């Protein structure tokens, strides 16, 4: 029996279903105060008056905080461009200007409403085109003087560009000359809001020296260092305790409200809680960046892609956040999956007067894949070749290298994925009929390599405790993945293992739930800890059993003699004995993924250099378009995904179904458009999340190629299923209607017009 495999329920399901689980917003302390922020009502301008005198005298108010009381220095994830509170200028709608701390949220809000704020409004720089115009106002005139994260290598930035990546290996123009056809496409995509159920919150207290923060956050250690950085104190003065998280999808990787709760706590000496309302959350969260993408490729009559040029302008919003890192993502997608010949890449993270954008599941990949795979269809069309045949002809094989110089040792899996999709949904039969269509897309994705750790301890009752700062973001990575791996290491059932909530005071470093890393990296850390712990456990058991440690094995919660299973001692007895012999049976393990080789000269500004432990994905969708309103119905969705090995099939299937749903939202309904720098959709009522009634049951094909350096062979699985979704659906809609879909969400009006045109033509 092993705890790795099917039919292991997650440990948090019952509490979540019954409403017993406490999330960050549920956290309470006696005597706790509540804060509200005054956020900028306009996208850009100069603050001419900020009068908080009335606010201070509102009943129940304990503190009013503005830039005057806050640290002066700027902070940031990698580029320190963000002030604590806006003071002279405001750069986006929703930017915090002041905070009131009061006995109740209502009192705090009433006091916020009394603040005298006058702003001389400026015409906002609302998109990348305006921002890159030669005479554009600079959002950050002092950009050159900003500090960057110690240890980060510097990168090109200037004007309204917070970061530029360029890769020009030479030979691109010559290669274009060998092409028979050249196709150029431009794509635009809007922002996507993570729309987790639990709005952002933070609760902080202060004891005169250290701050304690209670959060629901994907990355407690990031909160620790970022709050420390924002306050200008050392990391160890901050303690971060994690609680159940109502979804994150990348939006809870950087600071949200934590620094504000922290300063409120130290100024009042009381515990302070701050919770976003939904509109506040929607307008201020770092959503997936909007972008404009240009792809140009040369192709031969025989169907070979011979040259490519790719340009991507990412709207990073008013402060850079992590979009500076994201400019590297094209290096793993533009010349992967298909061989494309010499390729030139430019990617820019651009400042605009909009909320800072940032990480969202499948960072930048969703739209890069959309652009590339729409373009792939267009290339096939240009030479009159079948779209699937064209893909197979240019498909990567094991040993091919990506643009960063990293070799994909197992890229042949792509071929297998195409074949397996073909078995269930034969291309020649798919999407046939009036206003029906089929689309196909493929991608690779990474497993985030950053470090993690776990401490295992055998409890006196023989169960196993896992203490780790890894976070359960809802995917089951901790409550299934890590827990099952730990159980399997000791021959226990998963029910005999518990995993603690994160606490940065007592646990080793963990790089948070991002890039599908938790099961893989923390699973490896668990194995490393188990490797240290087992010899000690066997040593003690050997004394109890009178057998050599080497002759012992673990099974069903006991240690037994391999050749004489009647001689056993329970783990409980072993653990209790250990206590008497000078200490608990515990050990700590850590792991980070060794980085594959890459070519540091492949690009300038490559801050995020590799795609470690790559996985391979092929998606197919069939759609039907309504002739009367242009609405797209996805009638069939097939995913072939390589995962290394499934630790919990329910978990993997759930992540794929959910990723496809979220990708469908991006393709068909969601999107934050701005008008004059302000989001037009400002509530979940108008935002357009996908609904259960509109999402088909996804047909899932799992490919297992166990990863040698992975826990039981597991690779990352949860992030990537969102990546190809918009691409396949757009390709299917184009197939069904003749509409050349170049923007998201797919516009039914455009689809209707294309249908008319095809009918007339």
């Amino acid at each position, binding site marked *: 029996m092993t705890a790795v495999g099917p039919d292991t329920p997650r440990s948090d399901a019952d509490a979540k279903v019954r409403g017993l689980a406490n999330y960050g917003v549920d956290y309470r302390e006696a005597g706790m105060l509540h804060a509200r922020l005054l956020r900028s009502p306009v996208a850009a301008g100069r603050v001419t008056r900020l009068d908080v005198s009335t606010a201070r005298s509102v009943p129940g108010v304990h503190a009013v905080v503005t830039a005057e009381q806050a640290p002066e220095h700027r902070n940031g994830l990698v580029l320190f461009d963000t002030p604590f509170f806006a003071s002279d200028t405001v750069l986006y709608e929703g930017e915090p200007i002041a905070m009131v701390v009061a006995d109740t949220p209502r009192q705090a809000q009433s006091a916020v409403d009394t603040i005298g704020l006058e702003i001389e409004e400026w015409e906002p720089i609302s998109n990348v085109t305006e921002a890159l115009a030669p005479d554009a106002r600079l959002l950050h005139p002092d950009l050159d003087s900003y500090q960057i994260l110690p240890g980060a290598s510097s990168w090109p930035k200037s004007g309204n560009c917070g970061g530029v990546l360029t890769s020009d290996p030479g030979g691109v123009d010559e290669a274009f000359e060998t092409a028979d056809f050249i196709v150029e496409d431009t794509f635009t995509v809007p922002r996507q809001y993570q729309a987790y159920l639990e709005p952002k919150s933070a609760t902080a207290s202060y004891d005169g020296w250290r701050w304690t923060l209670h959060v629901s956050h994907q990355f407690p250690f990031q909160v620790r260092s970022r709050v420390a950085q924002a306050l200008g104190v050392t990391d160890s003065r901050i303690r971060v305790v994690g609680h159940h998280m109502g979804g994150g999808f990348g939006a809870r990787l950087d600071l949200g409200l934590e620094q504000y709760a922290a300063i409120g706590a130290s100024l009042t000496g009381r515990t302070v809680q701050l919770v976003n309302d939904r509109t506040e959350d929607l307008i201020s969260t770092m959503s997936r960046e909007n972008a404009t993408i240009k792809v140009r490729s040369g192709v031969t009559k025989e169907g070979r892609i011979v040259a490519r040029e790719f340009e991507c302008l990412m709207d990073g919003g008013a402060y850079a956040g992590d979009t500076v890192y994201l400019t590297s993502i094209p290096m793993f997608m533009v010349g992967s999956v298909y061989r494309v010949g010499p390729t030139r890449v430019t990617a820019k993270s651009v400042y605009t007067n909009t909320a800072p954008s940032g990480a969202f599941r499948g960072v930048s990949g969703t739209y890069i894949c959309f652009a590339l795979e729409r373009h792939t269809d267009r290339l096939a069309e240009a030479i009159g070749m079948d779209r699937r045949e064209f893909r197979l002809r240019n498909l990567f094989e094991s040993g091919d290298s990506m643009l960063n110089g990293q070799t994909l040792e197992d890229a042949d899996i792509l071929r297998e994925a195409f074949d397996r999709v073909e078995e269930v949904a034969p291309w020649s039969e798919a999407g046939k009929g009036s206003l029906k269509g089929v689309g196909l897309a493929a991608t690779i994705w990474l497993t985030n390599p950053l470090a993690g750790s776990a401490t295992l301890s055998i409890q006196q009752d023989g169960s196993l405790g896992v203490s780790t700062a890894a976070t359960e973001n809802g995917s089951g990575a901790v409550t299934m993945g890590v827990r099952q791996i730990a159980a399997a290491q000791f021959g226990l059932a998963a029910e005999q293992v518990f995993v603690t909530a994160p606490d940065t005071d007592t646990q080793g470093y963990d790089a948070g739930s991002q890039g599908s890393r938790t099961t893989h990296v923390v699973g490896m850390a668990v194995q490393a800890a188990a490797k240290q712990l087992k010899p000690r456990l066997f040593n003690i058991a050997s004394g109890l059993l009178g057998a050599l440690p080497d002759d012992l094995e673990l099974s069903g919660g006991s240690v037994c003699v391999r050749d004489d299973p009647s001689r056993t001692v329970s783990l409980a007895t072993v653990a209790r004995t250990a206590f008497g012999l000078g200490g608990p049976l515990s050990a700590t393990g850590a792991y980070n993924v060794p980085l594959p080789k890459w070519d540091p000269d492949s690009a300038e500004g490559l801050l995020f250099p590799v795609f470690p432990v790559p996985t391979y994905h092929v998606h197919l969708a069939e759609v039907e378009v309504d*002739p*009367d*309103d242009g*609405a797209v119905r996805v009638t069939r969705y097939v995913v072939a995904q390589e995962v290394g090995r499934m630790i919990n099939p329910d978990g993997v299937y759930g992540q794929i179904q959910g990723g496809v749903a979220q990708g469908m939202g991006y393709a*068909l*309904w969601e999107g934050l*458009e701005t008008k004059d720098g302000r989001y*037009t*959709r400002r509530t979940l009522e*108008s935002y*357009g999340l*996908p*609904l259960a*009634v*509109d999402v088909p049951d996804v047909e899932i094909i799992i490919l297992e190629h166990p990863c040698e350096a992975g826990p039981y062979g597991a690779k990352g699985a949860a992030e990537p299923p969102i990546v190809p979704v918009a691409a396949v659906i757009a390709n299917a809609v184009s197939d069904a209607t003749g509409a050349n879909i170049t923007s998201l969400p797919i516009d*039914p*009006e455009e689809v*209707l017009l294309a249908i008319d045109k095809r009918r007339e033509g």
Partner: protein
Amino acid sequence: MQFLAPMTVDEALGALSEREDGLRVLAGGTDVMIQRMTGQLPRSESLLYIGGITDLSGVHLSDGTICIGALTTHHDLRCNPVIGTDLPSFAEAAATVGGWQTQAVGTIGGNLCNASPAADLAPPLLAADATLVVSGEDGPQRIPANRFFLGRRRTALPVGQILLKIEVPVPPAATWESYLKVGRRSAMEVALVGLAARFSLAGGLVETARLAVCSVAPVPLRLAHAEAALVGSTLDQGAVAIAAQRSMEEIDPIDDQRATASYRRMLVGRLLGKAARLAREGLEIQ
């Protein structure tokens, strides 16, 4: 702020006559509570919860008239056999209001009295030539549907009165009706366009044609010119094309975050075509 919960119509009217200022009728609350939360209605306003007045809910058929109590929920409209048989467009419209949760508590009275330009029950009401029965100064008064909607969130319901019920004559034999709604998703959508169509035949030809739309003007409205183009026809392509053309001229849609005016215009014409297609099948017009 006060919360009053009368159990009879008289009690409700008594409360209303005592305090005409700031007493808001509350039925299912799916509009009122959101409008309070978003500041469209003052939070200080007192509430008169009429949900306890049992007389005001349910569907009754008598003397060739179908009476729909103002408190009838969308769920009940969707499932009621009389509505399903005789007024399917009401059932279809109710089935598109929000999601199941909204339908469980939201009422037809609330939908009509809220008078949103996008109210889904308004087009069926208009197409059925229904009558709204309101409490009146001295006993119930009748307001024809086509005089009820005055503007966005403005109705002919006098201040201090409540809507009691809706009366709809049972449609003649050989009548087909339907409500067609376009939203981006299959539920939880404010209509981009909603169209109620009702056709009655006599001698194989359309004797009466009634078309009503929401979300394409400040108020839900009848498309009188388009209707006229279909009377006497067999809903043939020629007549329908003329009607579709006229329908697009009769409306006044706007661009907003949900859709462009041009898309809404296209939709009205196409929905009309779809309704005609479905009606020809339903009425077995050769």
